[in-house]
């Protein structure tokens, strides 16, 4: 290590010592607490990632007379401000019975009489407490963020990252400790330096302190470990997770990351060439990629930032998980930042449930990215429009508020419940529940919006077609247009009447066919009578229409055609009647089928020709 670095290092140590001095002064005023004695303490510190995890097994014994129901865990304030997660689990029974582990409630207490430089947490023992002479074993897991200090603080691209970790070799506790040990697990066997006390051993990548025996309350012996670690220091300054529930079958998760590499800052210049050539030597401390472990059956996964899609990502999955590996646009060195968004859809039935008349969303709180520290995590749950009576149940305290979000096809906006938590570590990736009430009829809001929108378009068309938009109501062209429209409508009616006449003709023909099949003359006559009545009525209706056309000047051009049509139709009608009479007569006289055919053959030809003519005229008039 260069000389300058060493002096810097000793300065850090000095600062550290000074902290201890303050602490020691504070300790003098601390009261002696209860009659509990820790008979055995084993601590294991895991430094293999950027997150410091201290797992301790405590065996506690009550040497006093009264039963005790709480145990205090004490942290110096310097440590406590980075404490992200703390749990205590009773290991009921020994060894194999650990399956029946029970979570013990832990709460922050600002015990009066505690000096301000200490932060105390109170662990409540299982029911009944600890009687005289009894002992109890439990595990404490404490997770710290930002507890590893990079040292030196600035390195070049080619340097490896060195970190400093400070702890006490003795378990810091308000109780006397009989036997204790500490194990520090490092990512590499390469250690720059570590504090050597009595009973210190280093084995590979593990440093062991202890066992130490019979130490007084608040014993403190600082140790500093300076070691090499190229673990990615991925810190999210802020992460906003938006979970949008759609009852049409999807839970959409969108995560906006604002990342920074929280390790040793890079100094000097960055050479992409060196990095590409030997990435593990020239850029060992850089964050190359991130792995997000998404829930199974995640679909429609995307990864983008402000300027669009980032194409370097890989996705694979099986029935238990979906893994997304993403690479930022550039390798992230110390102090560098990046911001991006990932999003994915999840099947509704995996996360939304119904119980006791309420719906409940059961989804994980934290980020899916591995080993990430999140300074501020905001989780927003966007519920469908029409949800009410919203409540949240989270496994740890969070700040919460409500807002609304206006999204696709909304009228009043969707209710959003926002949860905020600072200092989030992977241990916080637990399920939380959002309960709400929802009436299924409200699901029809979106289709109703679409339907009413499209219906309005139709209504607009109808109004446009019906509206009279001309400005001058008395101009000649306007009047001519009105008259022409009247003529058109009359012609339309004439056409309809003629068409009805033709239908009557067809019926007569059909009655003749029936006659030839069944020989029922009476039925045929009845049909004839009926048809005569109808035709008479139709011709009566036709008369006023024709007179209108004759008086209208606009109809002058079309009139001859219409009149011709009427005349031809009349002719056709007459011929048809003659044919009908002939056939019926023949049937009455029992003339043979062949004879009938001969007699009407000439008539039939004329009828066909006339029919063709009428049809042509109809088509011609229709096309006006």
């Amino acid at each position, binding site marked *: 290590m260069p000389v300058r670095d060493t002096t810097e290092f000793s300065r850090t140590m000095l600062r550290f010592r000074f902290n201890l001095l303050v602490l020691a002064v504070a300790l003098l005023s601390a009261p002696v607490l209860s009659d509990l004695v820790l008979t055995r303490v084993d601590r294991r510190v895991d430094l293999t990632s950027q997150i410091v995890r201290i797992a301790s097994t405590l065996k506690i014994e009550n040497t006093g007379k009264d039963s005790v129901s709480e145990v205090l865990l004490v942290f110096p304030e310097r440590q406590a401000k980075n404490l992200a997660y703390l749990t205590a689990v009773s290991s009921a029974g020994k060894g194999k019975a650990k399956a029946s582990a029970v979570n013990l409630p832990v709460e922050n207490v600002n015990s009066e009489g505690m000096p301000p430089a200490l932060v105390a947490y109170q662990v409540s023992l299982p029911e009944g407490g600890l009687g005289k002479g009894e002992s109890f074993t439990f595990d404490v897991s404490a997770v710290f963020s930002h507890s590893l200090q990079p040292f030196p603080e600035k390195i070049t691209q080619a340097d490896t990252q060195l970190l400093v970790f400070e702890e006490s070799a003795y378990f810091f506790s308000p109780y006397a400790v009989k036997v204790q040990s500490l194990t520090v697990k490092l990512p590499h066997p390469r250690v720059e330096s570590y504090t050597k006390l009595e009973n210190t051993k280093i084995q590979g990548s593990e440093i062991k302190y202890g066992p130490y025996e019979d130490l007084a309350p608040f014993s403190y012996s600082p140790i500093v470990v300076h070691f090499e670690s190229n673990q990615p220091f991925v810190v999210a300054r802020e992460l906003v997770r938006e979970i949008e529930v759609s009852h049409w079958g999807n839970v959409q998760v969108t995560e906006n990351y604002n990342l920074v590499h929280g390790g040793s800052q890079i100094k000097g210049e960055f050479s992409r060439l060196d990095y590409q050539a030997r990435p593990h030597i020239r850029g060992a401390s850089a964050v190359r990629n991130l792995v997000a472990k998404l829930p199974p059956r995640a679909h429609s996964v995307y990864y983008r930032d402000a300027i669009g899609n980032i194409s370097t990502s890989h996705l694979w999955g099986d029935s238990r998980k979906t893994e997304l590996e993403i690479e930022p646009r550039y390798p992230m060195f110390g102090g560098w930042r990046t911001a991006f968004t990932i999003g994915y859809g999840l099947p*509704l039935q995996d996360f939304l*449930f119904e119980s006791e008349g309420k719906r409940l969303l059961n989804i994980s709180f934290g980020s899916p990215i591995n080993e990430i520290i999140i300074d501020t995590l905001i989780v927003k749950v966007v519920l469908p429009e029409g949800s009410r009576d919203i409540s949240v149940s989270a496994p740890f305290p969070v700040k919460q508020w409500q807002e609304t979000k206006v999204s696709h096809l909304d009228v009043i906006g969707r209710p959003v419940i926002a949860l905020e938590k600072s200092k989030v570590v992977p241990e916080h990736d637990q399920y939380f529940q959002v309960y709400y009430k929802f009436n299924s009829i409200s699901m029809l809001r979106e289709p109703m919006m679409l*339907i009413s929108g499209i219906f309005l378009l139709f209504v607009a*068309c*109808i109004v446009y077609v019906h509206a009279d938009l001309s400005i001058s109501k008395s101009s000649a062209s306007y009047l001519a247009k009105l008259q022409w429209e009247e003529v*058109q*409508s009359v012609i339309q009616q004439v056409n309809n009447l003629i068409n009805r006449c033709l239908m009557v003709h067809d019926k007569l023909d059909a009655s003749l066919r029936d006659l030839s099949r069944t020989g029922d003359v009476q039925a045929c006559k009845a049909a004839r009578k009926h048809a005569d009545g109808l035709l008479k009525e139709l011709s009566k209706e036709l008369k006023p229409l024709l007179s209108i056309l004759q008086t209208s000047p606009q109809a002058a051009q079309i009139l001859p055609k219409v009149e011709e049509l009427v005349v031809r139709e009349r002719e056709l009608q007459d011929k048809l009647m003659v044919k009908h009479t002939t056939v019926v007569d023949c049937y009455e006289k029992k003339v043979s089928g062949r004879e009938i055919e001969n007699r009407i053959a000439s008539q039939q030809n004329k009828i066909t020709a006339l029919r063709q003519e009428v049809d042509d005229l109809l088509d011609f008039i229709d096309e006006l």
Partner: protein
Amino acid sequence: MEAQKAITSPVPISWYPTLAVLMLAVGLVITASFFIYEATSSRRSRSLAKELFTGAVASIFLGFGSLFLLLSCGVYV
């Protein structure tokens, strides 16, 4: 926890594309007939009730059709 029942979409997700195509096709045919009627009938012979009815039926089909189209595209409303 036993009382919990998973909530699924009212229509299976895999039907969305088919439903979208079918309902949009029917809706567009009805729309076409609506406009043909508007264009061919003269002002006097038009029936407002018939126009409104055709428009309403067409908009129901087009509305649900476009909803399913959005859903099958991944825009979960």
